[in-house]
């Protein structure tokens, strides 16, 4: 089995129901595998369960039922401390609304994770600098989020997610708040990471034109997978 074909994520019969007075059935039994080096786009209408699924995959939420393994490790029942450590060291997550700390500069937003991993201050700064250069923000290390454009903020968020070289990068509608041109720049960054560095990426989007960057597209509706197809005409 080649490296690219190695299965990194296995999801079996994933169910997520919210109880907020009435039961909201966000996911109703979803199963799929993800191979290393894939750039997967999860699509579907509002309320189809895209974001819920990504949050479970990113270990930000737990499923009501079902099995989820990363590299054969069952991550659902990991204690909270270990899930936290796993998020820190193995996964990257890009939020729709950037989720940057406004009081930290771009480099601090990125380097704080390396500090948490135990790297020295200098080493952490260099890691952050490298990641920010990778997303084209090498000249804006000291800028705070309020002095960055939407696209730049999202690129800082991507830099934060990739600085620690995660096994898998999750991105939840990273272009939702961006114009088309800026969206294209962000998608190029993600595409480059996938193409040049073999980064596994799982991204939620509702824009059809984004799919030209995908190697595989999973369609969700009412918490179920309605389509799961590989793209043969993409960059892959």
């Amino acid at each position, binding site marked *: 089995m080649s490296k690219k074909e190695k299965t990194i994520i296995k999801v079996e019969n994933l169910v997520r129901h919210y109880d907020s007075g009435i039961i909201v059935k966000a996911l109703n039994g979803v199963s799929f595998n993800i191979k290393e080096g894939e750039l997967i786009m999860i699509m579907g209408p509002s309320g189809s369960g895209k974001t819920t699924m990504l949050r479970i995959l990113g270990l930000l939420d737990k499923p009501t039922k079902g099995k989820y393994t990363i590299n054969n490790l069952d991550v659902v029942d990991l204690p909270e401390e270990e899930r*936290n450590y796993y*998020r820190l060291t193995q996964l990257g997550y890009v*939020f729709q609304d950037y989720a940057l700390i*406004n009081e930290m*500069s771009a480099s601090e937003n990125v380097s*704080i*994770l390396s500090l948490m991993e135990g790297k020295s201050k200098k080493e952490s700064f260099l890691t952050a600098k490298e990641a920010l250069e990778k997303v084209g923000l090498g000249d804006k290390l000291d800028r705070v989020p309020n002095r960055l454009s939407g696209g730049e903020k999202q690129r800082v968020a991507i830099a*934060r997610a990739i600085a620690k070289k995660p096994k898998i990068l999750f991105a939840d509608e990273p272009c939702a708040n961006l114009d088309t041109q800026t969206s294209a720049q962000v998608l190029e960054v993600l595409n480059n990471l996938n193409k040049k560095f073999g980064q596994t990426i799982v991204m939620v989007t509702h824009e059809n034109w984004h799919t030209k960057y995908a190697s595989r597209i999973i369609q969700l509706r009412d918490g179920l997978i309605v389509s799961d197809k590989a793209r043969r005409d993409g960059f892959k």
Partner: protein
Amino acid sequence: MFDDIRVGFVSALSSVKRGNKKTLIFIIFVLALIFMNLIFLPSFIGGISGMFTNFMKYPYGDIVIEPGENNIYINNADNVLQKIRAVPNVKAATKRLDVGASIEYNQKVVGSTITGLLPSEEYDISNYPYIIKEGEFLGDLAQDEIIIGAMLVEGYFGSEIYDNLGGVRVGSLVNVTYSNNVERTYKVKGIMEGTFELVDLNALIHYKEIEDVFGLNESKATSVVVKVQEEADSKEVKEKIISVGVKEPISTSDEKSDAILRQAMQSIDMINVVSNLVSLIVGAALIFIIIYINTLNRRREIGILKAVGITPNSIRISYIFISVFYVIMGIFAGLILYFILMFYFTKNPVIFYETIRLTPEIQGGLIIKSIFTMLIMSVIAGFIPAWFVTRKSILEAIWGR
């Protein structure tokens, strides 16, 4: 743990460095007022307490020996003094004679207590030689001189509410009529001001003069006043004086002030304790509320930090650092405010009971205790809300669900 502290510190530092400056100033201002509240009123109450204790030192020194029951005088006070001076830790001792008299100047007459004392011995015992506002203290040789209290002199603080001797000044001649009707004329050598009625309504004359006027001999005294060494305990010295055979009643100045001011001091102490307790509770609650609101406002930020893998411990430590920083700045600002007010009230004392000028007393122990309390509160106030928020799920912290 070291990484948690390091990340907590970096996170707190950027939060303080780049956070909203207006909010920062407001929080520090409120914390400064909380700190002030902890130390300001107790300083005044401490001032009252210290003032009364100091007042007691004029008539009683550290230890006072008075005539026994049914006796007007201590007989052979020199013999008593000889015994006392041999007791370890006694710095100095002297005898005094207090008598009643009326003083007249330019047809103005006031009643007063006149204390006969040995001037050179008083330098080591009482404050009398050091509170002369005009003129000089008595000399050992002259018996025709008098020191009068400031409230007997027109224009001095408190003189307007009592009968006074009008424009009497240093160098003026006053007539004194003693309780045995002997009349003498004295030259005013000095005016003393202790801002305390028991001192400022009295007069001082040489001991020998009182002996002459009353025809006393064999060294009689109405009191023998003792000053003990700085490091010595008055109570222990008192016991030693008893043990060397002094039969007359002996009291420490604390016991005397207890007897005279017990009720007042008990009330003041109770006010002080209640005030301290209330200030402490209010201060603690306010610190907690301020930090709690501040932390809750950063709930989303805490959720984000958790989501990207920052440990809850780091986040809690970060908020403890922030809280401690706010409180340290508040304490610093509070101390500046406090010392400005202390300076003002020392220069402009509060007038109390028309005749007492009340100045606050800076109490180092209280300040240290208050700083310590504020710092402990800051740790608790920083930790608890951060602990609450970090316990929430990431989804709840960031998106409120």
